């Protein structure tokens, strides 16, 4: 039996790919060390085009007739008011370019001109070493970091030092957590129940927030914040699971890259916090196949955000109090209580290769 998995892992070798949304020029080489703000690649993106239909404007019989009248070639650069096509003769008629640009194609009597472009550049975002070049698109960066995966993020990115403010799995983010030394940091707490705290974080400003849970009523406010917010558990007030909190406490003051689910090229990444740290020898690889003895996190009420260890997988189907018959496991929770939980409500804590994003 397989289920989903979640990564709250001690530091290990991590690879993350960074891609341009379009073809461009890669500016780094394999083996090069990069900082988060370094530019990996650049591209020019066309933003505006004009299509000039020579056949229609001159009222010609067809594309063949237009061919001899078009004065330009593909790839030519056009200045303001440059002539594209001309009928010739005493009363010659001309077609001028509607804007300066570059001729992209001439096809069936139609001239396609790229008239506006914009330059985009791709930041490394992660400090590390270039492990691989992806031709014309970007690169893969390798670093050593602990991974704390999230359930939800507000699709923003930032980096900064980690300040773990939670001492318990139910600690509530409070105004006292935003002292001046927290400016520019990524604050971690178990839960936040007050939207004013999200605004307060923006005014300080913090670099980002890592929370266990947040009530759904704060969603719009969280989406509108300029900084990234990551929830390790999801929506509610139950707080943060003990494995994630332990990890965050362990790496207090370490530098963090907080990706709250930004798009990377065309790939939507899962929200995560990478906490830079040297490789931890205790690191173990765990597959997501569910077996007895594995540490799991529950992601569904009424045990949302609680962790425990699988005692056994119950054979066949188990009837829940609501009558549903499901594949379930007997889980010894951290408080030593035994609970029967559907396997689909569990995440195996650990990670599985490959870890490249």
């Amino acid at each position, binding site marked *: *039996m*397989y*289920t*989903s*998995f979640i990564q709250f892992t001690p530091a290990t070798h991590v690879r993350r790919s960074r891609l341009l949304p*379009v*073809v461009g020029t890669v500016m780094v080489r394999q083996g090069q060390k990069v900082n988060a703000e370094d530019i990996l690649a650049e591209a020019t993106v*066309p*933003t*505006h*085009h*004009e*299509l000039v*239909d020579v056949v229609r404007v001159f009222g010609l019989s067809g594309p063949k007739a237009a061919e001899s009248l078009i004065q330009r070639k593909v790839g030519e650069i056009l200045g303001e008011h440059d002539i594209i096509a001309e009928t010739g003769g005493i009363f010659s008629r001309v077609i001028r370019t509607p804007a300066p640009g570059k001729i*992209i*194609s001439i*096809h*069936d009597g*139609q001239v*396609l001109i*790229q*008239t506006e472009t914009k330059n985009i550049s791709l930041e490394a975002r992660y400090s590390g070493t270039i492990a691989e070049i992806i031709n014309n698109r970007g690169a893969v960066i390798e670093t050593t970091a602990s991974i704390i995966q999230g*359930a*939800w993020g507000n699709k923003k990115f930032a980096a900064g030092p980690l300040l773990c403010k939670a001492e318990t799995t139910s600690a509530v983010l409070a105004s006292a957590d935003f002292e001046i030394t927290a400016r520019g940091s990524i604050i971690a707490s178990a839960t936040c129940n007050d939207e004013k705290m999200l605004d307060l974080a923006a005014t300080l400003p913090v670099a980002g927030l890592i929370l266990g849970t947040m*009530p*759904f*009523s704060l*969603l719009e406010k969280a989406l509108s914040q300029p900084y990234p917010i990551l929830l390790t558990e*999801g*929506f*509610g007030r139950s707080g943060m699971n003990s494995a994630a909190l332990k990890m965050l406490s362990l790496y207090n003051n370490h530098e963090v890259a907080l990706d709250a689910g930004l798009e990377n090229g*065309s790939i939507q990444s899962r929200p995560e916090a990478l906490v830079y740290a040297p490789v931890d020898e205790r690191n173990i690889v765990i*597959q*997501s196949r569910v077996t007895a003895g594995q540490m799991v996190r529950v*992601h*569904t*009420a*009424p*045990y*949302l955000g609680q962790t425990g260890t699988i005692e056994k997988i119950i054979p066949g189907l188990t009837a*829940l*109090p*609501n*009558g*549903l018959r*499901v594949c379930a496991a007997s889980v010894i929770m951290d408080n030593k209580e035994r609970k029967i*939980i*559907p396997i*689909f*409500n569990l995440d195996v804590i650990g*990670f*599985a*290769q*490959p870890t490249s994003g």
Partner: protein
Amino acid sequence: MSPANQEAYSVMALDIGTVHTRALLFEIVEETYHFIAAGVAPSTTELPQNDIGIGVQIAIRDLQNLTGRILLNQQGSLIIPCQMNGEGIDRIFITYSVGRRLAIATFGLMSDVSLQSINKLASTVTGQIVESISLNDPRTIHEQIDDTLNAHPDLILFAGGTDRGASRSVKKMANLIAAILQLMPKSARPPVVYSGNLLLAKPVQETLDAFTVFSNTGNVRPNMENEEIDQAAEELAKVVTTLRYEEIDGLKQLTPLCNDSPCPSAIAIGRITRFLSKVRDPEKGVLSIDLGAASTITASAVAGELNLNVLPVGSAQGFEKFLKATPFSEISQWFPTGTNFEEAREQLWQKTLFPASLPMTVEALSVEHSAYRQLLRYIMRELAARGALAENGYETILCSGAALTQSGSPRQLLKMLLDGIQPQGISTFILDSHSILPTLGAIARTLPLLPVQVLESSAFTNLATVISTDSNLRIGSQILHAHLQTSDGKTTEVIVKQGTLAVIPLRTGESATLDLELNRGVQVESFELQDTHFKVNGGLCGLIIDARGRPIRLPKNPAIRGELLGRWDSMLAPK
């Protein structure tokens, strides 16, 4: 052709969904095909597995465990064909609904003619129309080009011109598409599917072939009066499957084992629904609803005329889109009294983060069922807006997908389906608890006998026959008198009042004759019921008379509404 001639004693179908992968086994038992069992595994399309083959292997092993049949050899490969000792299988088919929504750009000549038809074709695949351009588009040409480029389409569908109709406009549109394609990097150019004027297929191909992969289907609008979507949808499915090979790791590797190319579940369900509509009451339709995790497939067919739609809402990954599009009050109106609204809202949004999660408490299950009810309302409204519903209602309503077939007791499921679908006239609800429906459609092309025989078997569950009345009489007024006589002579008399639900016990496999005496002002069918004496079949929940009217109107006052929902609930409870 007999099964023996086809040498297909044992047939396996793999159904690869967003959440689950199923391996279904069909075999000849006493000269007819029967559904034997289904092995199930979580789909393994995402990290860490990222290969559907792993989920397929686990599902087949599960099937082996269930049946005791050996299907895989020691290397883990399928044994094909079936051996003398009974090991292995003879045929294998694949259906799939997994895959992200494709971004589709549609091009047509007139917005209310060919563009409408091509958009209808687009709605038969798991996708979303990101750009639509017609000759009467108010934007300038360069705006049309830039908007299409910014929409990053995965697929371009192009219709235009009735057969032997306008040619210049089609060529003009083909040139526009050519211009757009030239501005895209070669590796990112979407394939173009042309479904327009057949006489122009060749020149259009000549214009576009140089830039991208070009396919030609039949004309979706051969003349102004008629639309022909079905054949084009089958052709389009092949193009979509080719796109999916690039996206879904493992799909292409499985294909050589199959006896037909992998078939999108929507196309397969469409085929079976169309077939059933041909063999059933030509006045009424057959409706199939497959509420999947990421999307919902609906196939509505009357006398062979199919209307197929893949809607971007579902019970798991597609749940977020539904929640965003639906005021919470429309969901909460179905909550039982005492439900904590804030907790309920959080539960539903949490499900968007963990789509496969299951409700663990009675309250949580009620909340989830309330959401599914409203999700079905959303689907029915959407179908009505697209003109995709049969005028005279449905004789058969086939329900597939775990949310509709496995998320509760038969009575809970029936309540959800009645409130959500709100059928009209006389309908039989059939549950496809093993998700067989798409696989039958995929197999139908090469083994047509198998689906026919399996449909006649007990592979599907008859949930209930429902008679829905329509009346303007006051709540509590007597509206009909029903007299049921079973084949063994037992009779049941029921008087039904406006605003109530009545249950007449009639077990699965039993049939009976039903006489209805309708009071003045009461209708059962939208057309005049000629005969009020007819045969009905039993089901898990028996025969239901739903006299709550259409649409069901719930009181605004929460206390009164909660009391009414509780009363309806108890009316359906077994006596």
